[in-house]
């Protein structure tokens, strides 16, 4: 018996532990000579990029200073520009004695995000709805003020990251409900409503956004009586909500189309009215199916905020550009590149967070079904 048992026992040993890291490397990265060549090539590229980033961004970088003179080395990053100006980047021209209001706004924003990222048991749904509705209202009161004892601050003083976040948040928070309404309109059986919504959506999707923004800012005062009293920032925000709601409508329509006809039929067969059917059966499923595309749209809304540069606003990117023209910081191009690398990192960290969130939701919905 023994000769038979022995090899059998050996086979039972867990393969990875006995063969180890080297074998794993070999089978994954060096299995054929082409594979080995690619692995070596890639390692070389990674090494080159990595050593550049470490030298440029850390070892040769200047972290603090008050003007371009602080950064004489053109082969290293000039983070001094960022550390010197970060207040301007984050708060824009918001009056400095009122900046705590912006801080509270950022804090509330973080809490709202937390409400959507983490689960809070049975109250999760209600909490999210409260935040989704409450945050925009609280944000408006905090930032603009002029009520409950808060001093009025004109939106034209918003700038930097604050303006970027406000535009993106308005774009997202307004376009989700508007998009849902438009989608319901477009799929309505009433011909007039569905045609109007379809044309609205097609119009905003078909016109370049730059044209829309410029048009709104220039033409709104002419269209609407007293339109010139509407703040120019608000006009831009309306434009932003207008075309993004068209995109959101299409996102939700995609989700709606993924619902099988049987769900509608079963709902009707038990006697649900149109609104109850949509509210309890169809939309919960359609919205869930829309989440990946919805987050995708949120990411592009966030990046697209930079087009307000064209109508003279200093959003995050704009204020960095403006600061670069400050004579104190005029200098060799490496200050420029450091500034834009910093901007890219900030935009990326926002959008990367969003796409990670969407991936997590996708995985979770997969488990549900």
């Amino acid at each position, binding site marked *: 018996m023994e000769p038979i048992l022995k090899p059998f026992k050996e086979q039972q040993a867990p393969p990875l532990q006995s063969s180890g890291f080297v074998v794993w490397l070999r089978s994954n990265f060096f299995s054929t000579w082409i594979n080995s060549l690619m692995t070596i090539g890639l390692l070389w590229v990674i090494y080159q990029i990595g050593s550049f980033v470490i030298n440029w961004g850390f070892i040769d970088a200047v972290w603090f200073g008050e003007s371009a003179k602080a950064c004489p080395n053109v082969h290293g990053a000039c983070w001094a520009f960022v550390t010197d100006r970060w207040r301007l980047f984050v708060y824009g021209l918001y009056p400095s004695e009122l900046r705590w209001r912006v801080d509270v706004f950022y804090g509330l924003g973080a809490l709202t995000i937390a409400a959507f990222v983490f689960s809070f048991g049975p109250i999760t749904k209600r909490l999210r709805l409260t935040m989704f509705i409450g945050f925009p209202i609280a944000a408006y009161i905090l930032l603009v003020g002029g009520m409950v004892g808060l001093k009025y601050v004109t939106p034209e003083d918003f700038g930097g990251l604050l303006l970027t976040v406000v535009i993106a948040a308005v774009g997202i928070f307004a376009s989700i409900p508007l998009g849902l309404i438009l989608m319901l309109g477009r799929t309505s059986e009433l011909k007039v409503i569905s045609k109007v919504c379809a044309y609205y959506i097609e119009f905003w999707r078909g016109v370049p956004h730059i044209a829309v923004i410029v048009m709104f800012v220039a033409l709104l005062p002419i269209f609407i009586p007293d339109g010139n009293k509407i703040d120019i920032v608000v006009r831009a925000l309306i434009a932003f909500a207008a075309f993004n709601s068209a995109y959101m409508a299409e996102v939700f329509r995609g989700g709606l189309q993924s619902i099988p006809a049987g769900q509608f039929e079963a709902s009707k*067969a038990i006697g649900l009215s149109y609104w109850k059917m949509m509210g309890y*059966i169809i939309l919960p499923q359609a919205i869930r199916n829309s989440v990946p595309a919805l987050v995708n749209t949120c990411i592009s809304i966030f990046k697209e905020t930079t087009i307000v540069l064209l109508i003279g606003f200093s959003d995050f990117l704009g204020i960095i550009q403006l600061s670069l023209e400050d004579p104190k910081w005029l200098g060799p191009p490496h200050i420029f590149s450091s500034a834009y690398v910093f901007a890219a990192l900030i935009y990326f960290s926002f959008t990367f967070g969003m796409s990670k969130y969407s991936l997590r939701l996708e995985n979770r919905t997969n488990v*549900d079904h």
Partner: protein
Amino acid sequence: MSEEPVILFDKVNKWFGDFHVLRDIDLAVAKGERIVICGPSGSGKSTMIRCINRLEEHQQGTIIVDGIELTDDIKNIDSIRSEVGMVFQSFNLFPHMTVLDNLVIGQHLVRRLPKGEAEEVAMTYLERVKIADQANKHPGQLSGGQQQRVAIARSLCMKPKIMLFDEVTSALDPEMVKEVLDVMVDLAEEGMTMLVVTHEMGFARTVANRVIFMDEGQIIEENTPGAFFDNPASERAQSFIGQVLHHQ
């Protein structure tokens, strides 16, 4: 029969575009009657029974259900839908809710029962279809036969006077067909008015008062199950029965 029929089709015609799918359908169904509808694929069986709860609209003729004529009037449609239950081939349970909530939602939103009461009713029906132990699962976690029994229970919770079944066993693995048919036989014994589209001849023979044979949008033949299956009058019915027998 002195009593008025619960369902009445009078010269009903329907088109899908140019396609004439229902041709001069006349049919009267008495209370408590159990009718099996069969016929080749595409003959209009589903379309006909879907006209009863207005999942499809007819263009000519009249349909009267429980004394109410089907028109575009929304109120009529809603009150008829609350009288008529329907079970589909593909179950169509709501996947984002538990089994229990699938049964509660209609009672709560349409019959306006409070949640607790609706849950009690739901549990009694789940027990009737022998699936009470699955109440808190989601439909996706159930077998086909179990899902179809839940679908039947969901319809019954609405206390319908009429039940429509559209090939409810066709999507099931053979070993699950019986558990669903058993539930339907029970229901028939309680005197429910049933219109059943099926090719299950055994079921038709034991349960049906009448078999209706359709082809190309028309009712070709009507008879008792015994007479129809053993001695079909029309040639089309003969060849159809030949094929179905061959398959079973």
